């Protein structure tokens, strides 16, 4: 069941990447909201938690306030450059996830069809 377990791990990887993208989109949406604090999730930690969880379940990621960012006078600390960088990072991670998944499917198809 090698392929299936890798596929389920990739699924939790993609789901986590997607959750992180939502958090970044929310930070970007609130770039001008007074008093808003940048939020993020600890990707490494959450990925370890998601892969350790039983198959078919994806635990809800914990979203925390990010510390160490410069706060503007209106209490908002969203850094556009940081968010733009994280967004492209997440995009590439997602692309990698889908490409790996494609590879797994391709392998399965090859196994089913035999060498034609």
């Amino acid at each position, binding site marked *: 069941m090698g392929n299936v377990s890798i596929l389920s791990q990739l699924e939790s990887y993609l789901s986590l990447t997607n959750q992180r993208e939502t958090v970044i989109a929310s930070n970007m*949406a609130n770039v001008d*909201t007074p008093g808003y604090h940048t939020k993020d999730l600890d990707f490494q930690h959450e990925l370890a938690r998601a892969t350790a969880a039983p198959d078919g379940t994806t635990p809800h990621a914990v979203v925390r306030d990010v510390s160490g960012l410069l706060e503007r006078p209106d209490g908002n600390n969203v850094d556009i450059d940081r968010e733009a960088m994280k967004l492209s990072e997440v995009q590439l991670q997602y692309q990698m996830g889908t490409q790996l998944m494609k590879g797994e499917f391709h392998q399965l198809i090859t196994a089913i069809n035999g060498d034609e």
Partner: protein
Amino acid sequence: MGLFSALNISASALSAERERSEVAVSNLANVDTTRTEGGSGPYRRREVVLESVGTSPFQSVLNNASDLRAGTVPSGGVKLTHVVEDGADPIRRYDPGHPDADKDGYVSFPAINPAEEMVDLMGSVRAYQLNASAVSASKQMIQQSIDLLKS
């Protein structure tokens, strides 16, 4: 928390920022308006109030649990709660020939600083661009998921 929630969040920001730039433009347009409907003196500068939606854990879980109804701002998004009037006193200029001049010959003009409005406008345009690029990033990710179906 689906593929489309990030799109909804960015869309809420796009509409909030567009309304913000509309208010700034309306302030610029009325920089010399000395009378308003109802005869309540000169135009008053307007400002928007933005508020983040569902950032408390309870609210976000509740929003995710109940299906998104049309027209509601998704959890994590932003909404423009109200447009407030600036309480600054009008600027008084001496112009006895003006039809809105008072008995001493002074006319009340709105206290609007065009430079301030331009900066506000530029800020909202930049924020709009930022969120538009977030929309294209989400779209690309959704497209990649769809591409999984192609062999």
